[in-house]
């Protein structure tokens, strides 16, 4: 279809008015650039946000006691609801849909005062009392040693699994933490494992600043009795936690002597619901990317079509001359279509190339600056680029179609008469 002569013809024609060719090409360039960039940004956001969810079981909610808002069975309103360890067994028994019910306790806090010491070194860390199941709800990579087990719980072992940042602060470089002791609020715990959070983004410092100890040892060491701070509850995949959580709350109200209609007594954070919202949001964002890009591309295509119309009009005389010299209408049409196609595809490819450059630069900067919250690895897959190219070819042909048919509408004699 494209031999060298035809290329020369097309290039001669397109370079005859370089500025206009450039300006025309710009519309399509922009369209495809915006399309590709928007999709890449959406992908980046999606990857970033879903990475946040990637290190936890997503069919999960967190549930805690708040203050009652209704009096019930002689109890005043405004009473603090305190979950107890016995509630866990009741929940598991009454709700077989629940895969994990992990009671949790927390000590100190992120950015709090120093609560952990080892020899001369001290630091402020988050200390959690947990059950072994918790690692199935919040995934961790155990770098050294092991994670908590039921033996730790039953024997109330003073064992601890510590984050990489804890190691950094409390140990010298090269020092082996496993088997050593740390003091948590004056109580000695033996380090049995070191963990790291897989693919965390942004706030991984917070994560790595954490120490996990057995729930039972926590209760004993820090005198929390049979209290439960809050619960991390994961349902089996067949059940949606969002759907079954009202039943969970009902059981807890009964357990804690809370009015059945008291909605405020129990607080929760529903990870599954949050993820569903975000997923929906990203579908919308992708759609917006496609629509906006397609519209800009369309206007670019219309731009090409318009310019080609002007070109055809300006070249009416030339077309007349060519026909006098023996060009068939189809030859002329083909040339106009090819010019339009070449113009569209070249400017589209330039747009894709520049977009790829911008994306590469973004990734480079992200690599340099370290992870950014909720944004990672903006990419456009090859399928999207393939689709963009197909759209370009169609746009180029459509853009050339009207001008091409206009070009040979006139009789040669009238075309020649036009100046």
């Amino acid at each position, binding site marked *: 279809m494209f031999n060298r002569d035809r290329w020369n013809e097309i290039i001669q024609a397109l370079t005859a008015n370089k500025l206009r060719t450039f300006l025309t090409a710009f519309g399509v360039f922009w369209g495809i650039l915006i399309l590709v960039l928007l999709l890449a940004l959406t992908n980046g956001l999606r990857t970033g946000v879903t990475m946040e969810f990637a290190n936890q079981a997503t069919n999960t909610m967190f549930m805690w006691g708040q203050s009652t808002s209704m009096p019930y069975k002689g109890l005043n309103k405004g009473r603090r609801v305190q979950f107890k360890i016995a509630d866990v067994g009741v929940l598991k028994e009454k709700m077989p849909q629940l895969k994990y019910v992990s009671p949790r306790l927390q000590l100190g806090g992120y950015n709090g005062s120093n609560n952990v010491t080892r020899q001369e070194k001290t630091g402020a860390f988050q200390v959690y009392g947990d059950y072994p199941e918790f690692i199935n709800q919040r995934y961790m990579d155990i770098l050294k040693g092991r994670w908590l087990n039921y033996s730790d719980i039953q024997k109330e072992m003073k064992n601890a699994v510590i984050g990489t940042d804890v190691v950094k602060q409390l140990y010298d470089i090269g020092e082996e933490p496993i088997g050593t002791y740390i003091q948590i609020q004056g109580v000695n715990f033996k380090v049995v494992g070191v963990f790291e959070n897989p693919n965390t983004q942004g706030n991984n410092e917070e994560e790595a600043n954490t120490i996990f100890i057995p729930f039972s040892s926590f209760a004993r060491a820090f005198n929390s009795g049979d209290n439960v701070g809050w619960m991390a509850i994961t349902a089996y995949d067949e059940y949606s936690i969002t759907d079954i959580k009202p039943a969970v709350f009902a059981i807890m109200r009964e357990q804690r002597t809370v009015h059945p209609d008291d909605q405020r007594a129990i607080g929760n954070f529903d990870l599954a619901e949050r993820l569903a919202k975000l997923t929906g949001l990203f579908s919308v964002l992708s759609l917006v990317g496609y629509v906006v890009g397609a519209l800009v591309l369309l206007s670019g295509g219309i731009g090409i079509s318009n310019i080609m119309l002007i070109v055809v009009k300006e070249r009416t005389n030339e077309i007349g001359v060519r026909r*006098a*010299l023996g060009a068939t209408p189809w030859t002329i049409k083909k040339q106009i279509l090819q010019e339009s196609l070449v113009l569209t595809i070249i400017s589209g490819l330039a747009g894709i190339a520049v977009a790829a450059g911008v994306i590469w630069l973004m990734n480079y900067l992200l690599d340099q600056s370290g992870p950014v919250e909720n944004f990672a690895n903006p990419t456009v897959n090859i399928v999207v680029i393939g689709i963009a190219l197909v759209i370009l070819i169609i746009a180029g042909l459509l853009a050339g179609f009207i001008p091409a048919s206009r070009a040979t509408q006139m009789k040669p*004699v009238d075309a020649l008469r036009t100046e």
Partner: protein
Amino acid sequence: MIEISNLHKSYKTGSNYLHVLKGIDFSVKEGELVAIMGSSGSGKSTLLNILGMLDEADEGSYVLDGVPIKNLNEKIAAKYRNKFLGFIFQSFNLISYKNAMDNVALPLYYQKVGRRERDERAMHYLEKVGLADWADHLPNQLSGGQKQRVAIARALASDPKVLLADEPTGALDTKTSYEVMDLIQGINEEGRTILVVTHEPDIAQMTKRIVNLKDGRIIDDTLVDQVKALSHV
């Protein structure tokens, strides 16, 4: 070579028709050099365009080199134009972004002649019109006379049966006009049939036969004593 009879052509202007050609009977033999004369608006260009298959007559017959020209579709018309005819225009009609050689080669391009041969033949015709050294010049780097000579080379490139020239000297000064006419006479001497539309008597005198048009009819058709253009240069 050319046989036409009872040729009619009218243009529609608004609601009425302008009857431009009112029955032309006319024939040209091979090797003739004919001037078509007449005042402005007498229908000279209309006649030439019909002969050139750029336009169609309303009525009448036209036979070119034994081939009846009637109801051609554009594809065949294009092929016939390419094969049978060479055009020379008053305003040269060179393609502005193509150099002299590419302009001359264009009819061969439409014949699908390969690039090498095309360039060779284009060069040959540029030599013939004395512009070999200007082969890679763009039209706007050439004088009017040079442009018309490139156009003549282009008209010759496909080795057509008939050259049709509409006021070929209309945009040129007298001296250059005579040079162009000298070239045309030379080409005619080689046996090629040429029709020249002109309203200038001195140009017409340089042909071998003058056909006079008036009000869409031929009022006069006479052989002339050809004046050699060279004698004026």
